[in-house]
C-alpha cells in the first residue's frame, strides 16, 4: 500500500494549498475580466438601485397630477419635463424601473420554472412524452410571439399581471427547448454513463447531475430573456395591454405620449431611453455571462 502510494504520488512540484475552484468561480473570474459585461452589470445594478430606492430618489409623487403644469419642457425643476398630467417624468421613469424589472424578472422566472420542467420531462423520458411536448413547443413557436401574447392578454384581460403571465407563457418553449437539448446532450456525456454504471437512479441523475449542469445556460439565457421580456412588456404596455394607468410603466408612458411627439418630445425620449438602457444592460451582462459560463453557446 505504501509502495502504491509512492508510485502514484506524482505531486512534487505542486503547491499543496491550491484552492478548490469550481466552474462557477472560474466563470466569475473570466466575467470580471470582461469590461463590456461589467458595464452591463453596472447598468443593471444602477436600475436595480433606482428601483429599490425609487421613493428616496424620486423628487415628486408619481401620481400627483397638476394639470396646470402640463407638458413642461425639461427644466431644473423637472429634469425630464412633465407629462400631460403635469406629472414629473423623471420620477415616473424611476418608478418605471420597478415595474420593468419586476415584470422582466418574474416572467422569466416563470418561464424558466415551467420550461425547465417540461424540457426535463421531454428530454429525459423521451418517447411519446417528448414527442408531445416538443410538438406543443413547435406549435407555440410557430405563432408570432407578440400575437400570442396579445391573444393571451385579450383572454385574461389587460393588466400588468396578465402581461407578465403572457410573456412568461410565450417564453416557455424557448427554455423548454434549451433544457431539453441540454438534457439530451448531457445524457450522452460519459459522466452520466458513469453515474448509471454506479447504479444511480434516474431521479438522482436528473437532479444531481443533469440539472446542475444545465444551470449555466439557463442563467445565460435567462439574463438575455429578461432583456426581451422587458421589451415585450413595454410593447404590450404600448398597445395598452399591459400596465394600466396610473402605473408609470415605460411602454405605457410611451403610448401615452405618442400624441405629443411633436410638441413635447421629451415625454417620449426619456422612457424610450430607459427601456433601451435597461435592455442593453441585460444584454451586455448576458453576453458576458455566456462567455464566462457557457462558451459553447456562442452562437
Amino acid at each position: 500500500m505504501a509502495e502504491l502510494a509512492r508510485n502514484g504520488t506524482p505531486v512534487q512540484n505542486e503547491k499543496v494549498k491550491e484552492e478548490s475552484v469550481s466552474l462557477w468561480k472560474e466563470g466569475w473570474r473570466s466575467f470580471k475580466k470582461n469590461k463590456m459585461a461589467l458595464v452591463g452589470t453596472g447598468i443593471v445594478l444602477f436600475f436595480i438601485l433606482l428601483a429599490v430606492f425609487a421613493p428616496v430618489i424620486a423628487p415628486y409623487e408619481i401620481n400627483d397630477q397638476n394639470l396646470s403644469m402640463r407638458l413642461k419642457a425639461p427644466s431644473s425643476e423637472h429634469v425630464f419635463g412633465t407629462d400631460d398630467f403635469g406629472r414629473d417624468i423623471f420620477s415616473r421613469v424611476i418608478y418605471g424601473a420597478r415595474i420593468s424589472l419586476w415584470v422582466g424578472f418574474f416572467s422569466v422566472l416563470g418561464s424558466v420554472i415551467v420550461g425547465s420542467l417540461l424540457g426535463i420531462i421531454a428530454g429525459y423520458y423521451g418517447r411519446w412524452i417528448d414527442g408531445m411536448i416538443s410538438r406543443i413547443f413547435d406549435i407555440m413557436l410557430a405563432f408570432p410571439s407578440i400575437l400570442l401574447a396579445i391573444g393571451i392578454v385579450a383572454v385574461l384581460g389587460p393588466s400588468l399581471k396578465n402581461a407578465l403571465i403572457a410573456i412568461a407563457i410565450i417564453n416557455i418553449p424557448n427554455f423548454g427547448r434549451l433544457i431539453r437539448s441540454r438534457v439530451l446532450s448531457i445524457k450522452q456525456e460519459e459522466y452520466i454513463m458513469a453515474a448509471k454504471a454506479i447504479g444511480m437512479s434516474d431521479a438522482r441523475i436528473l437532479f444531481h447531475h443533469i440539472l446542475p449542469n444545465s444551470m449555466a445556460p439557463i442563467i445565460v439565457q435567462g439574463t438575455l430573456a429578461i432583456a426581451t421580456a422587458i421589451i415585450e412588456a413595454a410593447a404590450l404596455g404600448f398597445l395598452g395591454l399591459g400596465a394600466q394607468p396610473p402605473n408609470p410603466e415605460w411602454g405605457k408612458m410611451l403610448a401615452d405620449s405618442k400624441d405629443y411627439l411633436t410638441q413635447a418630445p421629451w415625454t417620449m425620449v426619456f422612457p424610450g431611453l430607459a427601456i433601451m438602457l435597461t435592455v442593453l444592460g441585460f444584454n451586455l451582462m448576458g453576453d458576458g455571462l455566456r462567455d464566462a459560463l457557457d462558451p459553447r453557446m456562442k452562437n
Partner: protein
Amino acid sequence: MSKHPVLEVKGLKTSFFTDDGEVPAVDEIDFYINEGEILGIVGESGCGKSVTSLSIMGLLPKGIGKIVGGEILFKGESIVNASEKRMKEIRGKEIAMIFQEPMTSLNPLFTIGNQMVEAIRIHSKMNKKQAQERAIEMLKLVGLPRAKEIMNEYPHQLSGGMRQRVMIAMAMVCNPSLLIADEPTTALDVTIQAQILKLMKDLNKNFNTAIMMITHDLGVVAEVCHRVVVMYSGKIVEEGDVCTIFKSPKHPYTIGLIQSIPDIREKKARLYSIPGNVPKPGSIRQGCRFAARCEHAFERCFKENPGLYETGEQGHKVRCFLHQREEEMNVERTVAAGERT
C-alpha cells in the same frame, strides 16, 4: 555529397499572450532539417510541437500567438518577418503541411476536386483542366483508388485514411521541399497508420522531400525518421540520430519515455513510469523543466537551466547537467584533435 539544411530554426521563441500573461509555448529551440531528411519531433502533449510547426508556417493565431525571438531560415532566407505576400508564395509551394485531424482538415462544403484544384492553381498558371488532371494524378500517386470519382466527392464521403491521403496529395501538388506533418496518423487506426507511414516514406524517397514528422508515438519515430528531436515543455531536451536516441538515450526524460512503452514483442514485468505530470508551459521558470520529475535531479537542476551539450556521438545533443561533463570532455577531445592536425 554534403547535406544542405532546407530549414534552420535558431533560438525560436514563440509566446501566447493570454489572460494569464505571456505563455512561452516554445522557448528558444534550435534545430535543422536537411534536404531529403525525415526529422521526427517527439514529445508529450502540450510541449510545443504544433506551435513550432505553426511558427514556421506563419499561421499562429493572430493576436494571441507571436514569435518573440529567434530566426527561421528557409533555404537560407529568413521567414520570420517575411511579408504576407512572400509567405503566401512559400506556403503550399515550398513548405506544405498536413494536420492531425483528417476529419476536420478538409473543408466539408467543397468537393475534393475543388480543394485540390484550388491548391494547384494558387501557385501555378495551369488552367482548370490541367489542374484537374494534375490533381487526379496526385490522388493516384498517394494510392487512392477511383481517383476520378473522388474528385467529385465531399470529404465526409471518405474514410479517415482516405482523407489523410487526400491531404498528403494536396500537400504534394507543388512538390514542396519541406513537408510538415503534424501527427498525421494519431487519429487513425494502426492498420491505416501503417499504410500512411509507408506512403510518406515512399514520397520521401521518390521526391526527396524533407519531412518534419511531429508525433508522440516513439514507434512511429523509430519506423520512419532519420533524425529525432525530443521536446519537453517548450524546450528541446535531446537531439540526435534515430539509432542513437533509441540505443543510447542520454536525457532522463528520453530514457523514461522509451522505457515506459509497452512492447508487443515481449511482456515486461512492470513498466517503467516517469512520475508526475507534464507541466504547463511557462509554469516552470527556473532550473531544468524536467527536474521535478527527474530521478537524478540534484540541487543545481532546480536553479539553473542546463544548456544543450554535445555528447560524444555525431550530432547528438542533450540538455542535462549529467552530460555537461561529457561536453567538457568533448571540448577536450576536439582540442586534442585540433592539436593533432
